[in-house]
C-alpha cells in the first residue's frame, strides 16, 4: 500500500502571499502541510485561485515560500534553485520550445544533466515510445495536435526520471473525449514508471478517477486529504461535501437532545451516519447526497416539487424547503408521473446524513 511507504515529498507549514494591485495581500498558501507517499498519485483539487498551483510551483522551485519547508526524500529543497531540484513539471501551457523538434525538446533536459550523446539519444527514444510518439521525433511542436503536444510535454519531463513529477492542470486544454483517454494514459504511465505524480486539477471527476489520494484545497488551506472514495463518503467540511460530488447542505439546530433541520423538522437518530462527529447544542451543518434523498408524491405532503426531470432511468427532483432547496436523485420508477407543483414528502436513507464543519 502506498500509504505505508516512506514519503517522497513532505511539505511542512508552507505559506505564500502575493501583493495585490490594490496594495493588499493575498494568502495563496496558508500554513499548508502535506505528505506524498513514494510512488503514489496525489491529486491537489480545488477551485481556481485556491492555491493548489502555487503549492506546485513552490515544490518545483518557481516560487519561493514565505515560510515553511519542503523536503524531497527527507532533504530540504526549498532553498536550492529550480534547476538543481530532481523534480520536473508538465505545464498547463505545455511550454514546448517552438524552435526545437520534438526529439530536441526531450533531449534538452537530458543535455542539462550532461549525459553522453548516445545515452541522450537512447533516453529520448525510450521517452517517445513511452508516450507512443516514436514516429514524431523530427516534427516541430506546432505540427502536432493538442493531445500530441501534451504527450511530448510528458515525455520531456519523464525522460529526466524525476523523483516527483508535477502536473499543472495538464488536461484542461484538451477536449472531453481526449481528456478521458489521457486520464487513463496518465494513470498507466504512473504505474509503469513508479514515479510519484502530483497533479493539480479543478475537475473533481479527474481527481476521483486518477488519484490514489486527493488533497482538497479551500482558499489557501488543505481542508482534507485522503483516498478519493474516503473523501467522497466522509467529507469533513461543508466545502468538501459541496465541491466533491453534489451535496445538500442542511442547517441543523439541536434543542433538548433532538436535532432538527431548517425547513424539514426533526431528524431521527438513525438517519445520522454512525462515524459522524457527535451533535452538540451548537448550530451545525449536515450534508446529504442527492442519491440518499427520496422524494415521494403525497397529496397531503408538506413540500412542493419545484422541478422534476427524468434523465435516463433517473428522476432528478428539486424540492422547495422554504429558505432553500433540496435535490434528489432516485430511480424514476419510485415517482413516475411526478411533475413540478406536486405536493410531496421527503425522506433520507438511514445513516446518510453527516455533520460537516462550516
Amino acid at each position, binding site marked *: 500500500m502506498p500509504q505505508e511507504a516512506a514519503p517522497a515529498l513532505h511539505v511542512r507549514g508552507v505559506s505564500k502571499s502575493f501583493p495585490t494591485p490594490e496594495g493588499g495581500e493575498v494568502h495563496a498558501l496558508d500554513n499548508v502541510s502535506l505528505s506524498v507517499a513514494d510512488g503514489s498519485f496525489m491529486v491537489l483539487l480545488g477551485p481556481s485561485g485556491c492555491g493548489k498551483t502555487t503549492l506546485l510551483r513552490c515544490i*518545483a*522551485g*518557481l516560487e519561493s515560500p514565505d515560510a515553511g519547508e519542503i523536503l524531497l526524500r527527507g532533504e530540504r529543497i526549498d532553498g536550492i*534553485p*529550480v*534547476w*538543481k531540484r530532481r523534480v*520536473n*513539471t508538465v*505545464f498547463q*501551457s505545455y*511550454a*514546448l*520550445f*517552438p*524552435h*526545437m*523538434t520534438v526529439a*530536441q525538446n526531450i533531449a*534538452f*533536459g537530458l543535455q*542539462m*544533466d550532461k549525459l553522453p550523446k548516445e545515452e541522450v539519444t537512447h533516453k529520448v527514444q525510450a521517452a517517445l515510445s513511452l508516450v507512443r510518439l516514436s514516429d514524431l521525433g523530427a516534427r516541430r511542436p506546432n505540427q502536432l495536435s493538442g493531445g500530441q503536444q501534451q504527450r511530448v510535454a510528458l515525455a*520531456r*519531463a519523464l525522460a*529526466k526520471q524525476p523523483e516527483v513529477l508535477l502536473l499543472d492542470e495538464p488536461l484542461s486544454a484538451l477536449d472531453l473525449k481526449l481528456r478521458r483517454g489521457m486520464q487513463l494514459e496518465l494513470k498507466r504511465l504512473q504505474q509503469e514508471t513508479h514515479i510519484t505524480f502530483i497533479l493539480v486539477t479543478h475537475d473533481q471527476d479527474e481527481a476521483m478517477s486518477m488519484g490514489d489520494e486527493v488533497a482538497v484545497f479551500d482558499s489557501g488551506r488543505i481542508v482534507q486529504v485522503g483516498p478519493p472514495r474516503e473523501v467522497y463518503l466522509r467529507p469533513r467540511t461543508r466545502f468538501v461535501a459541496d465541491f466533491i460530488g453534489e451535496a445538500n447542505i442542511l442547517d441543523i439546530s439541536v434543542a433538548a437532545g433532538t436535532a432538527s433541520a431548517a425547513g424539514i423538522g426533526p431528524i431521527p437518530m438513525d438517519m445520522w451516519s454512525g462515524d459522524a462527529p457527535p451533535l452538540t447544542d451548537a448550530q451545525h451543518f449536515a450534508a446529504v447526497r442527492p442519491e440518499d434523498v427520496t422524494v415521494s408524491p403525497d397529496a397531503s405532503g408538506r413540500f412542493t416539487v419545484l422541478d422534476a426531470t427524468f434523465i435516463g432511468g433517473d428522476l432528478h427532483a428539486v424540492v422547495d424547503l422554504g429558505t432553500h432547496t433540496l435535490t434528489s436523485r432516485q430511480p424514476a420508477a419510485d415517482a413516475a408521473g411526478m411533475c413540478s407543483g406536486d405536493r410531496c414528502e421527503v425522506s433520507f436513507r438511514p445513516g446518510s446524513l453527516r455533520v460537516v464543519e462550516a
Partner: protein
Amino acid sequence: MAQSTRVRGAKPGQGSWWAGLPGIAYLVLLVLAPLVVILIYSFLSRAKLGVGVKWEFTLQPYVDLFYSESLSGARSFDPTYVQIFLNSVIYSLITAVVCLIMAIPIALWIATRSPRWRMLLVFLVTIPFWTSLLIRTYAFVIILNDNGPINEALQGLGIVSAPISMLYTPFATIVGLVYSFLPFMILPIYASAERFDFRLAEAAYDLGATKLTVLRRIVLPAVRPGIIAGFILVFIPALGSFLAPELLGGGKTSMIANVIAAQFGASRNWPFGAALSVMVLVIVMLALVVFVAVARRTARRGSGQSMESLL
C-alpha cells in the same frame, strides 16, 4: 425587388489596389528615380567645370575606383578608395555589434517589465529622435572634446594627468555611430522579446538549465528575428552615414559618404561620386544577401546554439 442583389465592392478586410497608388508614386519618384539618375551619371564623363555631367559614355569613373594615373599617364593600382570602403564596412560592423551587445540586455529588461512600465521605457528609447541628429552629433563634439566633461572628470579624479584626445579619432566616429543607431537595434529586439512566452524560460529552468543556458538556447533563438532586423537597420544606415565621421572623425577617418559628398562638392567630379554611390549600393545588397543566407542557415539548424554562428 424581392430578388437579392449581390453586394458589390471589396470584402471587408480586402484592400483596394488604388489605395496604394500614392505610396507607389512616392516610391517611384523619390526612391527609384534618384537611383536611376545616379546609375546613369556613373557612366558619363566629367563636365568641363565639374558641375553636372557631360553626356558621353565612359567607364572612367569605375576605373578611377581602383587605379590612378600618374602625370606620365602610367596606370597603377590605387588602394585609397578600396581602403575607405573597407573602413566603412568595418566601422559599420563594429557599430552593429556594439549596438547588439548593448541592446539585448536593455530590450530583454524592458520586455520583462509590467505593461505600463514597458510603454514608458519604449517611449524613453525614442526620445533622441525628438531633436535633429546634427545637433546631437555636435553635442558629442562638446562631450568628447579635450576640454569636455569626460576629460575634465578624468583629470579631476586624477585618473589621467593630461586630456585624452578622443575627438577626431575612429573611436569618436564609432561612439557617434553607436549613439545614433542604438534605438534601431533596441526597438526590433524588444518587439521580438515582448512576444516571447516567458513560461518557456520557466520550463527550461525546470528541466535543469541555468540562467545563461536559458538565455543562449531559449531566449536568444526566440528573439532572433528582432536581432536580424536590428542588425540590418543599424548596419546599412551606418555604412552610409555622413555626420558622425565628418564631425567626430574630423575627416581623418573618412567613411564613404564623406568621400561621395566631396565629389559632388569640392572635387567637382559628379560621375565619380555617382560611381562611388553605386558601389555602396552593391555592398549593401551583398551584405543583405549574406545576412539572409546566414539567417536561413541558422534557422534550418534550429535548436539553440545558433547565436554564436549568426554573428
